[in-house]
């Protein structure tokens, strides 16, 4: 595995309105790494994701995609490298499942170009992988929350970027699909040496499916490192301002809230 920098930020500060969420963040996401972003509501996780994707202006600090400053790269070129799954997506206008997933090909196509038969085949295959086979012509508005979530995952996978920025990817998913989707994401990134940065709320799933973690504390402090190193009772308890215990069972570590 190479240790090449994919997305890097230096001295990044994030503000919303006049409130500073956190300051001076240095982060280096390398190819093949799987990051979890943990923190309480309102800590700035979503804002960080949107800023890293270049969708929000930076007040201070710089972001580099590879070795190029993000603001010097066109939106389309960014979209070929970074894919973003939003926390929630509300649809006001009708569209079918097939049309929606094919939007993942948008950055790959020229102005007059149409999606190819291969794009459609790949889309169908991905839909089957997330258990949405046969849903191609369904209206997106008729899908359940979990089904829409899986459609979102399939769309960002069809986009095929190097770094997947996922905002609560397992939101709305049942237990079976939580594991299935995280396994799929892991398999895809490992096979193609891609990277993941996921906002998560489940410590155990983060411990299982991620190798790195960025913690954003409520006072604006951040910590980062390997999950093995940072997933400890005292650190997690401080992060969530709630007591968290670590239990061992058959050589596995589990975190439970008291």
């Amino acid at each position, binding site marked *: 595995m190479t240790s090449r920098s994919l997305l890097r930020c230096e001295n990044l500060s994030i503000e919303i309105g006049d409130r500073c969420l956190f300051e001076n963040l240095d982060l280096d996401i390398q190819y093949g790494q799987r990051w979890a972003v943990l923190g309480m509501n309102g800590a700035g996780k979503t804002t960080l994701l949107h800023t890293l*994707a270049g*969708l929000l202006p930076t007040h201070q600090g710089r972001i580099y995609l590879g070795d190029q400053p993000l603001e010097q790269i066109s939106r389309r070129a960014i979209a070929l490298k970074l894919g973003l799954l939003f926390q929630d997506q509300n649809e006001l*206008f009708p569209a079918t499942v097939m049309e929606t997933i094919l939007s993942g090909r948008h950055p790959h196509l020229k102005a007059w170009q149409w999606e190819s038969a291969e794009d459609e085949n790949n889309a169908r295959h991905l839909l089957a992988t997330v258990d949405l086979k046969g849903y191609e012509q369904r209206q997106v508005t008729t899908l359940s929350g979990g089904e829409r979530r899986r459609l979102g995952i399939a769309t960002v996978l069809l986009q095929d970027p190097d770094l997947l920025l996922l905002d609560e990817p397992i939101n709305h998913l049942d237990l079976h699909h939580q594991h299935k989707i995280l396994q799929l994401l892991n398999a895809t990134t490992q096979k193609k040496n891609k990277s993941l940065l996921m906002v998560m709320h489940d410590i155990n799933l983060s411990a299982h499916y991620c190798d790195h973690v960025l913690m954003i504390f409520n006072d604006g402090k951040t910590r980062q490192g390997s999950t093995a190193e940072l997933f400890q009772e005292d650190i997690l308890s401080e992060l969530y301002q709630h007591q968290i215990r670590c239990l061992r069972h058959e050589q596995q570590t589990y975190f439970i809230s008291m």
Partner: protein
Amino acid sequence: MHSARFFLPFLLVLALASLALSLTQGSIAVGLDSLVSILWGNGQGLERQLILELRLPRSLGAFFTGALLAQAGVLMQVLVRNPLADPYILGISGGAALAALLAMLAGLSGFLLNSSAFAGALLAVVLVFGLARHNGKTGRGIWTPLRLLLTGVVLAAGWGALISFILAISPERQLRGMLFWLMGDLGYAINPWPLALVFVFGLLVSLPLARSLNVLIRGELLAGSLGVDTRRVQLVLFLLASLLTATAVSQAGSIGFVGLVIPHLVRLLGYTDHRILIPAASLCGGILLVIADTLARTALAPQQLPVGIITALLGVPLFLHLLQKGQRN
């Protein structure tokens, strides 16, 4: 995905059929065979004059006005990301109407009347965009579609008040003409070619953007994450929709309904991809207005009705039927 292979050619044939209907019907009915020979360059005297100098410009005017309004409606709905948006939502027709009414008061007609309406529309466009911008922290003018929408809706209300004021103080003999203008009347459409030109220009600009619109309609951030330069596309949408609307209203008054409902009608038929939706809505808008204008000229002949009444009377049941059908599926 719905195949457009047959849909667009089908609409094109329907458009030609509606134009043929419109050209043959009227105070003097013309047979289809004479119509063909006249359009082919033959035919004699009076009929030839009737078709080429009176009916053809008016029918083409109706077609392109409907096409412009439907296209502007699609673009405006994407811009403000609101299914209730129509070409007039930002007050563009209000500015045009005020200027047109003032021109009528001043005794202007024909080309000068249409030019005044166009100037009024442009004034409204500049006003809404200027007022929707505000200086952010950076000192640069910032605008968002939401601010544009709110500013536009409020300005439209202001234009409405001024229009009512003009109506209230105008002499009675002018009220009828003013009301016809406000309801939309193709009697004012004297020259179809500017409409045709702007329509083609609109397609050339909007079609290369159509796939971006598919994503933009789902949200600005989402579109940005998929590589769309959202602010640039939104600016193009605003300018283009404004131009299309200004051109349409300056020729035919503020014909309602077409720009709001035709885009939804085509979506209900299953064509939600803007690469199909934009040309299909344009053709449907044109067809609806040609048929509506034919009815407006002939239903109570020799009396002519404002076409805006007929577009709604035809469109409302058609739309409701599709809505019912769509829900059953």
